[in-house]
C-alpha cells in the first residue's frame, strides 16, 4: 500500500470520526434543549420534590452540559453507552437485542425489493413508452406514495385476519417464543442453526408480510432508479454498436447495459437498505415488531437521551459504513474513479 493510499485512508477515517462526533454533539444539544424531562418520566407526575431532585442527581443532570457530554464521550470510548431508562439495561445490550430484529426485517425487505425492483426497472426501460412501462410506473408510483402503515393495516386485514396466511403481530407465535437460544439474534439464522425447522417456518410466516410491505416501498424506488439508469445506458453509442454487431437483445441489455449500471445500483440499494433499517418505525408499530424503530421512538418520547444517542450512533455508523462500502465498490468496479 502506498503512502498516498494510507494518507487517503487516514483522512477518510478522521472524517468518519468527526462526522459521528458532530452527530452526537448535535443530538446531545437538541436532546437537552427539547422540553422533555426524563426525570418526570421516571418518577411520575405525583412524586414530590425530594424524589425528583434525587433522581435528577442520579442521572447526572445537575452537572453542566459540557461536563455531561465529556463524561458521555469518556464512557463511549470504553464501549459504554450508559443505561437506558426505558429498560433499565445497558443501551449496548438493548441495541444488541433490538437491532437483529430490524436487520432481519430490513434484509428480507431489501432482498424482495431488489429482486423485484431491478428486473421490473430493466423491463420498463427496454419497453419505454409502451404499456409495460406504464404498468410498472403505476405500480411503483402506488408503492412509493401509499403510506406504509396503510399497507400494513390492509396487509394484516387481508393476509392475517381474512386469509390466515401470515402471522399476526410480533416476530413469532408465542408458543415458539424462547424455544431457540439467541446466538445471532436473527431468528431465521438461529432456528436454522439449531435445526428447529418448525420455529424457522413460523418465523418466516411472521416475517414475510411486514417484509413484503416494507419491500414494496423500496421496490418502487429501486425500479424507478433502475429504469432511468438503464435508459441512460441504452441511448449510448456502444449499445448501438453492439446491436449492429448482431448481439442478441438479451446480451445487449444484461451483458452490456446492465453491467454498467451495477455500481450505481449498488449505491442506491445500499442507501435504501440504510433507510429501511432506520425507517421501519411504522411497520414495527403496526406489527408490534420488537425492533430498532420502536425502541428509538419510545426512547425519544421518554426523553431517554442515553438510548436516543445510542440509536443515533448506530444509524450514523450504518450510513457511514454503507457510504464507505459503496465508495469502495466504485473504486473496484469503475476504473475512472481510481
Amino acid at each position, binding site marked *: 500500500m502506498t503512502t498516498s493510499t494510507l494518507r487517503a485512508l487516514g483522512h477518510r477515517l478522521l472524517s468518519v470520526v468527526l462526522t459521528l462526533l458532530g452527530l452526537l454533539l448535535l443530538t446531545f444539544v437538541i436532546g437537552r434543549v427539547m*422540553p*422533555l*424531562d426524563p426525570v*418526570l*418520566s*421516571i*418518577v*411520575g*407526575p*405525583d*412524586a*414530590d*420534590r*425530594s*424524589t*425528583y431532585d*434525587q*433522581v435528577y442527581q442520579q442521572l447526572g443532570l445537575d452537572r453542566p452540559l459540557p461536563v455531561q457530554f465529556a463524561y458521555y464521550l469518556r464512557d463511549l470510548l470504553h464501549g459504554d453507552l450508559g443505561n437506558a*431508562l*426505558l*429498560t*433499565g*439495561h445497558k443501551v449496548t445490550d*438493548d441495541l444488541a*437485542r433490538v437491532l437483529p430484529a430490524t436487520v432481519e426485517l430490513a434484509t428480507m425487505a431489501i432482498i424482495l425489493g431488489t429482486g423485484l425492483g431491478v428486473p421490473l426497472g430493466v423491463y420498463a426501460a427496454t419497453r419505454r413508452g409502451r404499456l409495460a412501462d406504464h404498468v410498472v410506473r403505476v405500480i411503483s408510483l402506488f408503492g412509493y406514495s401509499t403510506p406504509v402503515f396503510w399497507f400494513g*393495516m390492509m396487509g*394484516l*386485514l387481508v393476509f*392475517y*385476519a*381474512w*386469509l*390466515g*396466511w401470515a402471522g*399476526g*403481530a*410480533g416476530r413469532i407465535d*408465542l*408458543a415458539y*417464543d*424462547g424455544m431457540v437460544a439467541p446466538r445471532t439474534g436473527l431468528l431465521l439464522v438461529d432456528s436454522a442453526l439449531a435445526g428447529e425447522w418448525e420455529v424457522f417456518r413460523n418465523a418466516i410466516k411472521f416475517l414475510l408480510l411486514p417484509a413484503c410491505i416494507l419491500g414494496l416501498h423500496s421496490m418502487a424506488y429501486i425500479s424507478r432508479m433502475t429504469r432511468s439508469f438503464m435508459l441512460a445506458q441504452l441511448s449510448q453509442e456502444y449499445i448501438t454498436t453492439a446491436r449492429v454487431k448482431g448481439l442478441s437483445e438479451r446480451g445487449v441489455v444484461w451483458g452490456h447495459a446492465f453491467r454498467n449500471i451495477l455500481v450505481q445500483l449498488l449505491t442506491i440499494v445500499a442507501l435504501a437498505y440504510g433507510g429501511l433499517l432506520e425507517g421501519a418505525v411504522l411497520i414495527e*408499530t*403496526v*406489527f*408490534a415488531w*420488537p425492533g430498532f424503530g*420502536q*425502541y428509538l421512538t*419510545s426512547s425519544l*418520547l*421518554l*426523553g431517554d437521551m442515553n438510548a436516543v444517542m445510542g440509536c443515533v450512533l448506530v444509524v450514523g455508523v450504518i450510513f457511514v459504513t454503507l457510504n464507505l462500502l459503496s465508495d469502495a465498490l466504485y473504486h473496484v468496479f469503475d476504473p475512472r474513479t481510481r
Partner: protein
Amino acid sequence: MNHTQLLRQCAISVAVALALGTLGAVAQAKTPDDQLIVGFSMNNLLSLDPAAATGNDVVELAANLYDYLIELDPQAISKMQPGLAESWKVSADGRSITLVVRKGVKFQSGNDLTAEDAAWSLQRVLKLNLAMASPWKSYGFTAQNVDKAVRATDATTLVIDLPEPTDPKMVLYTLATSVSSVVLDRKKVMENEKNGDMGAAWLITHAAGSGPFSLVEWRAKDALLMNRFDGYWRGPAKLKRVIMRHMTESQSLRLMLERGDLDVASGMSVPDIESMKKNPEAVVSPVRRGTLYYVAVSMKDPKFADKRVRLAIRNLIDYDGINTTVMPNYGLPQQRPVQMGLPASLPSPGYKLDVAAAKKLLAEAGFPNGFKTTIRVLADPPFINIATSLQATLAKAGIEASVLSGTGNQVYGAMRERNFEILVGRGGGGVEPHPHSSLRALVYNPDNSDAAKLTNFQGWRTSFFSPELNQLIEKAEVERDEAKQTAQYQEAQKLYETQVGAIQPFSQMVDTVVLRKDVRNYFGHPSATTRLRDVSKQR
C-alpha cells in the same frame, strides 16, 4: 404466452389462493387452553421495582407476581379483604395499626415469608425515596423514622405506627392498592444488592415475590412471560402461563382478538371497541378508575384568579356533548373532585354549557369581548378531542384559545412549572377509595409559594389556595366518627363548588378491557390490582 393467457393464469391463481385462504381461515388459530395472552401498550412500563414503578400497568403485574397484605374487592371497591394479613386492628387513638401476617407462606424462591419481610419492604420504599414513596411521605413517614414506625414484633406481627394523625383507613387502603405495599423476598433481593442499592437495579427487571405467578422474562417493549407458582399459598393458579405482549396499534389488537390469538386486550380505540361490542366472541368490560378528566386553569394568571372568569369557564364546558360524543369507553360523567361510589360522594351539581351566563360573567370581570389563551393537552384521544370541544365552546363567549398539544412530559411538565393557562388533563389520586385521596391530589395545597414546589399536589400546580378548604380536609382526615367525617367531606365538596376551584372535573376515568368470551373470572380491578389467579378458560 400472450396477454390474454397471462391474465387468465393470474386470475386462476388468485381464485385458488383465495379459496385456500378461506379454508385456512375456517380452522382458526386459538390460544392454548391453559395460557392467557394479553395485549396492551407497555409504553408506560419502565420498571418492575415496587419502590420506583409508577402507573397502572405495573400494578397489574405486581398484583400477580407479589402478594399484598390487604386486598380490595373488585366489585365493592371500599371493602377490605385479608391478603397476606389474616386480620388487622387499629388502636383506639387511631395512631397504630397491627397486622397479623399469615403463617406458612413461602416465597417463590422457597424462603419463608414473615412479618419481617413485610416491614423491610415498606422500610425499603422510604429509604430509597423513589417515586412510590410519595403516599407514605404524605402520611409523615420518612427514611429516618420508618425503622421505628414500621416494625415486625415477631414473625407474624407487623406494627405500623402513624407518625402524624391521619385516617388509618386511608393507610390501610394504601396498603391494599399501592404497588409500594407488596411484600418482597428480602433474602433474595439482598442477594442481588449492588453498591448498597437494596436491590433497586436488579428489581427493575426482576421480581422476588410470593404471588401466584413468577416472572420468567421481561423484554421491555416486547413481551413479559409469567409462569404459575405451584407452591402458592392459596393453591396454584388455574392458568399455567400468562403472556403479555407490547402492542400499541388498536387495530392490530382487534384483529388478533378476532382471530383468537389474544385473550385480553386493553388500550383499544373507541371505534375498535365499538366494533368488538358487536362481536359475539368478545366481551367488552368497562372498569371504573378513581382518576378524573378535568379542565384546569392556572390561578397564577390574573385572569383566572378572578372567580368570575373561572365560573365562566365552568359554564363553557359542554359536559353533555363531551360525555356523549367523546367519552364513551373513556369515562363516565362526574363533575365533583371526589370520585363516585363512595359514602361521601354527592349527586351531580348539574353543571351545563351556558354561554349566556358565561358572557355575563366575563363582562362583569372586565372581558366583554373575551380574551386570548392557550389550552395545553396531550396529543392522544380523548384528550385532544376534549380540547377541540372546549376550544369551540370558549369561542362562543369570545375566548380565542389555541390548542398546544404534546406528550405527557411536555403537558404536565408545564403544569408542574406552574407555567400554563388552561390544561385538559387527567389525574387526581383516587387510587385509594377514600375522599381524602382525591381531595389531597386535586384540591389540597398547604403552601402556595413558588418556593414550596409542591409539584405532587395539583392544587399547588394550579395555584388554587383556600385555607378554609385545607382546614376542612385536614379536619375530616383525622375525624374518627364516620358519620361526621362523611358530612365533612360533603361539606368540602360544596365549599369547592362555591369557591370555584381551578380544576373542573367533567368525567371519571373508565378503562375498557376487551376479552374473548371463553375467559372466566377476569375482574378488572378499579385500583388496577387485577388478579389472574382464578382466571381460566372454558372451552
